[in-house]
């Protein structure tokens, strides 16, 4: 559908109202032509530029004018053509290139020691002059990694029963990033189909080494192993580490007992409860429960069978502990197995890992990768995230209004961009400016001191 047709349709619509519009609606899904309009009118180029500059786009003498130009971007074009190591001098160049290339996906890489476009000029000597120097601490949580514990969907599908796994992942990780690690400038983004990304943008985070990133990822790691190994979650000791204990009591336990248990019917069939019994280490407890459940096929009470069986399991496991069963924390192990966040370790560990930029459009679903407010993440519904076609429809409908300054404000994307600015970008930039100013002052002080000897 060309723009002319769209505009022609609009004139009719003004007379006939919304119903007419429905008939001329832009079909769902993804289309490269729509992308062109998206990048032309809706994608927040200037905000991305400001973000990636981290305050270095100002006139303050402490600003590093080369900073933005050393950031790698990567474009995926139609027909899976990858353009890596793209870099830009400024906002204008960035926006221009995006509009011209119309990438199906934009990835953001690290800030390198030198302009990535010039990397070949710096020969690979033993000292490796072309190397990442700054990179946000990033996390990628994908619901397909939970396929062994969700029965409602598998693969790329997500529904209201299993999406909450993402919600609690956000809660657990976000709380820890702030309370334990002291990070403040954290952006959570919907990945567009089946997961979430996290960008930690504090200066301290950007300057972490690979080893430190690996350490943080390991701190968050509880679920280990795969189909080849047995033990997936192993929690031993007389107590849980405060981080795990807090996650358990504040988020995971209630979610498991009140939401997951009934919605996923974790105990309703033999196959399903065997999976849980498998996690129990005490053979006598295992066989006792198995005996009970094999007989009791139909629940005689009104209560949910999952709740009943879970209670029975808990009672047996807790009494077992008193017998000096050992240091296994059986109940927590089960709850953690089903609910604790599963991160992709490789994404977080390496500075040079690329990650999709926020506000991209997912080519398979048409959803925009919008930010998620961690304080209100339970309210986030992936099915209602604006799609490319919906946004274009909205644009067309509001087209004539001139009192709205930005095109995106005429659409449901406006809410997301405004959230991005007020909750994330502005506080971040304020802190960056302060950091630049104070480190500049310190530098001046040092040079003064070295002169006054």
């Amino acid at each position, binding site marked *: 559908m060309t723009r002319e047709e769209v505009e022609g349709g609009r004139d009719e619509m003004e007379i006939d109202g919304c119903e007419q519009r429905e008939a001329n609606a832009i079909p769902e899904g993804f289309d490269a032509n729509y992308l062109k309009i998206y990048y032309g009118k809706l994608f927040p180029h200037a905000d991305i530029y400001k973000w990636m500059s981290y305050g270095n786009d100002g006139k303050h003498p402490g600003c590093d004018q080369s900073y933005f130009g050393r950031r790698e971007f990567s474009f995926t074009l139609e027909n899976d053509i*990858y353009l890596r190591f793209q870099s830009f001098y400024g906002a204008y160049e960035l926006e221009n290139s995006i509009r011209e290339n119309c990438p199906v996906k934009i990835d953001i890489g690290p800030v390198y020691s030198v302009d990535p476009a010039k990397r070949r000029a710096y020969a690979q000597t033993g000292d490796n002059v072309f190397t990442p120097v700054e990179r946000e601490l990033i996390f990628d949580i994908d619901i397909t990694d939970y396929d*062994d514990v969700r029965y409602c969907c598998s693969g790329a599908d997500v529904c209201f029963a299993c999406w909450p796994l993402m919600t609690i992942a956000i809660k657990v990780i976000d709380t820890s990033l702030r309370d334990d690690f002291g990070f403040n400038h954290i952006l959570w983004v919907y990945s567009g189909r089946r997961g979430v990304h996290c960008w930690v943008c504090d200066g301290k985070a950007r300057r972490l080494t690979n080893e430190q990133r*690996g350490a943080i990822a*390991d701190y968050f790691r509880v679920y280990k*192993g795969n189909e*080849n*190994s047995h033990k997936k979650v192993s929690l031993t*000791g007389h*107590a849980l580490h405060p981080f795990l204990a807090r996650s358990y009591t504040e988020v995971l336990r209630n979610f498991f007992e009140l939401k997951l248990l009934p919605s996923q019917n974790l105990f309703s069939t033999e196959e399903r409860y065997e999976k849980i019994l498998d996690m129990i280490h005490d053979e006598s407890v295992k066989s006792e429960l198995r005996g009970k459940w094999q007989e009791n096929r139909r629940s005689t009470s009104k209560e949910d069978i999952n709740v009943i069986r879970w209670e029975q399991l808990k009672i047996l496991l807790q009494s077992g502990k008193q017998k000096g069963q050992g240091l296994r924390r059986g109940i927590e192990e089960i709850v953690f197995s089903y609910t604790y966040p*599963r991160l992709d370790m490789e994404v977080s560990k390496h500075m040079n890992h690329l990650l999709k930029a926020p506000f991209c459009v997912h080519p398979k679903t048409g959803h925009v990768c919008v930010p998620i407010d961690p304080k209100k993440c339970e309210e986030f519904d992936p099915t209602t995230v604006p799609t490319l076609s919906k946004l274009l429809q909205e644009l067309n409908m509001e087209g004539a209004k001139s009192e709205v300054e930005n095109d995106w404000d005429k659409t449901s994307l406006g809410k997301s961009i405004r959230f991005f600015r007020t909750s994330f970008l502005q506080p971040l930039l304020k802190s960056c400016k302060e950091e630049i100013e104070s480190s500049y002052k310190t530098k001046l002080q040092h040079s003064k001191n070295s002169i006054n000897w």
Partner: protein
Amino acid sequence: MESARSHRKSIANDVVSTLPLYRSAPALEVRLEDFTLFAMDRLRVLKGISDGLSRGKKTEEMEQLAKDLWRANMRHPQASEVVNKDIISHFVLRLVYCRTEDLRKWFLPMETALFRYRFRHETAEAQRSLMAEFDLSYKAVSNSEFESVKDKLCQVARSIGMSLPTADAIFYKVPFEEVPELVAGRRVFIHKGHAYVASTQVVSLVATQFRSHLSKALILTNRKWTSTIREQEKDRLAPIVEALCTSYLGPDYSQPKGFSEISLKDIDDLVKSSFPLCMRHLFEKLREDHHLKHGGRMQLGLFLKGVGLKLDDAIAFWKAEFSQKVGAERFDKEYAYSIRHNYGREGKRTDYSPYSCQKIISSTPGAGDHHGCPYRHFSEENLRAALNKMGVDGRAVENVMDKVQNRHYQLACTLTFEAVHNSSCDSGINHPNQYFSDSQKILQSKDGKGISTLGNKKRVPLLFP
């Protein structure tokens, strides 16, 4: 006003630790003979530590091992010369191991590990004096702050089986970045970016500092070596330095030597006859799922390169499998690039080396992964089943499982090799490509084709005039 809890700083100055920090090169004269011999003695210690780590030995065992190795190798007939031998050998090895990324990547963690184990064996006073060198005392936690976080500190102690902190326990508050391994193991309480480190854990802090200093020093040494020393010492030290490391670590299999290249039609037979279990598993999963995740692609792909699979054949091989799942086009666009990357034809153009057993054992396969070391990462039943499939059964399986339970993963693989080939493997397996080449050696000699010219890959101590 609260007083800092570290009031013991004054005592530290009286105690001298014999653990050097290697901050600067010694102004000593060294005989050429000692130059080499001292270095080789130290190298034996480091290699012993490396072996111990790849067997997954626990920290207490490693500390004892390091102590034994040190005592066995680092003595000197003159007691006064012991410290000099320590320092000289370290600096010689710096010269040897600064020269490439791979060498540095091996040397740095081994020296740091050695330092850490030796630190743990020092007396408390000696440790404090060393810590003073690292300027840690100012970060001690005050009494009132200790009270406010005491609950959490106790909780952490209980979670890792450490004794509970007493009222006069000293804790250090440091930025979490300075104790990455304590953070990774959830062995410290962290709050607002600060980690509370117990005095028994201080070795971590100190080791991190040691490591970071050594890392920088290696880079500087390399620069000096490349720019001036190598040329100056062309006839004297350079040949010694160059020989010292290659003789010791064994081949890295990045360039398959003396082998006829393997062709695709042979590959299925070769898997059954000569692949170690880790690669066999990956190969079978690839055939089954027509896909492997990144870790698996790297481990298997580089192994195949080391075995002699040419780039074009490699691309054809992976394409034949992957296109059944993702289609030929998508393969060309998404996966072909990284295969060429592994062969050094893209990007940085590094010719990546196939992974050694140590590296594979220490990997962490997650959901959907099939790489790693099966002897470590498989459950007992899965491992038994896999061994049966390889034709190992009865007594032999029990012997292998026994090694596994004691975490001697490479020994387990060696026993498997011996059972499969019905012949002994004295050198032990420490690289999947070694397993393959040793296997081929045996099979080819049985076939009467004669032993292929692989050259002598065993480690030979160097003799210098």
